[in-house]
């Protein structure tokens, strides 16, 4: 079902975890399959210096999380704000269609984290947060938040 690339990212452990005292934190859950993702970021000079993610979810979710962290580590915030779930899926070389809109949450969680960072720093949230509805799978914020 999964491509080799997806399986490769599924096994990557580098950016798994949680940054203590993170600058921004975002959690998102998929109501359709219950997958849950928590992204924490450390921001320095408007660049994502470090990013870590925790995932409760299937292979696609875990691989998306790993891919996202690789994509945005070292990226200016302004650029990271336009990263979408589709970008992640594309970077993975595609995901099974039934997974595309339920387990592919990582970018949404990142946008939450960026928004959180901006709020904490007095800025208005202007990232992709408001654009989440473009992804057909209706996402709601994690209850935990």
């Amino acid at each position, binding site marked *: 079902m999964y491509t080799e690339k997806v399986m490769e990212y599924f096994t990557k*452990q580098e950016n*798994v975890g949680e940054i203590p005292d993170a600058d921004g934190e975002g959690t998102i859950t998929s109501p*359709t399959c219950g*997958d849950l993702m928590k992204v924490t970021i450390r921001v320095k000079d408007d660049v994502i210096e470090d990013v870590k993610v925790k995932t*409760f979810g*299937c*292979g696609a*979710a875990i691989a998306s999380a790993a891919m996202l962290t690789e994509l945005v580590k070292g990226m200016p915030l302004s650029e990271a704000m336009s990263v979408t779930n589709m970008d992640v899926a594309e970077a993975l070389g595609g995901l099974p269609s039934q997974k595309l809109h339920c*387990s592919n949450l990582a970018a949404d969680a990142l946008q939450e984290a960026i928004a959180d960072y901006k709020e904490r720093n007095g800025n208005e949230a202007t990232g992709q947060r408001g654009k989440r509805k473009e992804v057909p799978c209706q996402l709601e914020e994690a209850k935990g938040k």
Partner: protein
Amino acid sequence: MRRVYMDNSATTPVRQEVIEAMSECMKDDFGNPSSLHWFGRQARRRMETAREQVAGLIGAEPEEIVFTSGGTEADNMVMKGVTQQLRHKGRHVITSSVEHHAILHTGEYLEKNGFDVTYLAVDEHGRVDPDHLRHAIGPQTTLVSIMLANNEVGTIQPIEELAAICRENGVLFHTDAVQGVGQLDVDVETLGVDFLSLSGHKLYGPKGVGALYVRRNRRFQPLFHGGGHERRRRAGTENIPGIVGLGLACQLSHEELPERREKLVAMRDGLIAGLIERVEDVQLNGHPSERLPNNCNLSFNYVEGEAMLLNLDLQGIAVASGSACTSGSIEPSHVLLAMGVSRELAQGSLRLSLGSFNCTEDVDYVLETLPPIVDKLRQMSPLYHGKE
């Protein structure tokens, strides 16, 4: 890589004897059993021997066996055929909420076509309460279908009691015994059922062949129309090599059943005890004692089933999960949900189903491999706060 197959409830490996018998049959007895000539007669003889073997395993008469293309066809055949046959008597069917989709989705089809279907609830172990059945039966009820043993959690239903209630009420009773046949003593007389489904690929036989037991004089509308095969109950040129393979698999099951069961139970209990010992926050799903000899279904808190499954697969171990992601639907296992298991625990369920090809070393390998995987996934899980 060492490969350990523990997904025998999805499908079993095929016995070597079965493969050989099928090859030989295709080579030597390729005829059409409807043909009058020698080639046809040879094929017919093969088929009738197989019919006796299948009947022998479940205590039926050969004429009561209708060969099908598998369990799904047998289930559809009886659900649609009996309700259609008796639709002038009534339009109410009873089944349970933990049936295989071959029954459940056929039930939904019937609902869309003017029938009422009652889906009996189950207790936390997945069992139907006979009293519920008694109350659900009404004057309109024509058919009750309750599975012998559940494919996900292995829970065995009190079929004798359920069938007796139906008989008292003049209602026909079907049991989907696809998971039970080959592992449990199944005797249609003891059970008292009118119809019973079984499938070759769940008992070390071939895929694409199964059977429906039809008690003498029980009538139903056929699912396939065409030639007069199978005493006009199932049209289509018979799958002779498949039928031969099914027959042999049934005969071998018959001979080896007690030994097979003992071995499976020992491995199963070792697996369950070993995992519960080695992993915290685990729960066994299904019935503690009334369960299939080969079934081990556990829920691992804080982790998702597919992720465990894929990690096990990377280490050569094949299992199944009841998580939404593997069931191909939005909901996780309807069986676990019906038993009152939470969505989260249903998401984190794993089914390890043993087979007669497994050995103790396989169990040991799983006991060695799975706990670290659970541990790793818990460390990755935002739900887990245990030992971060």
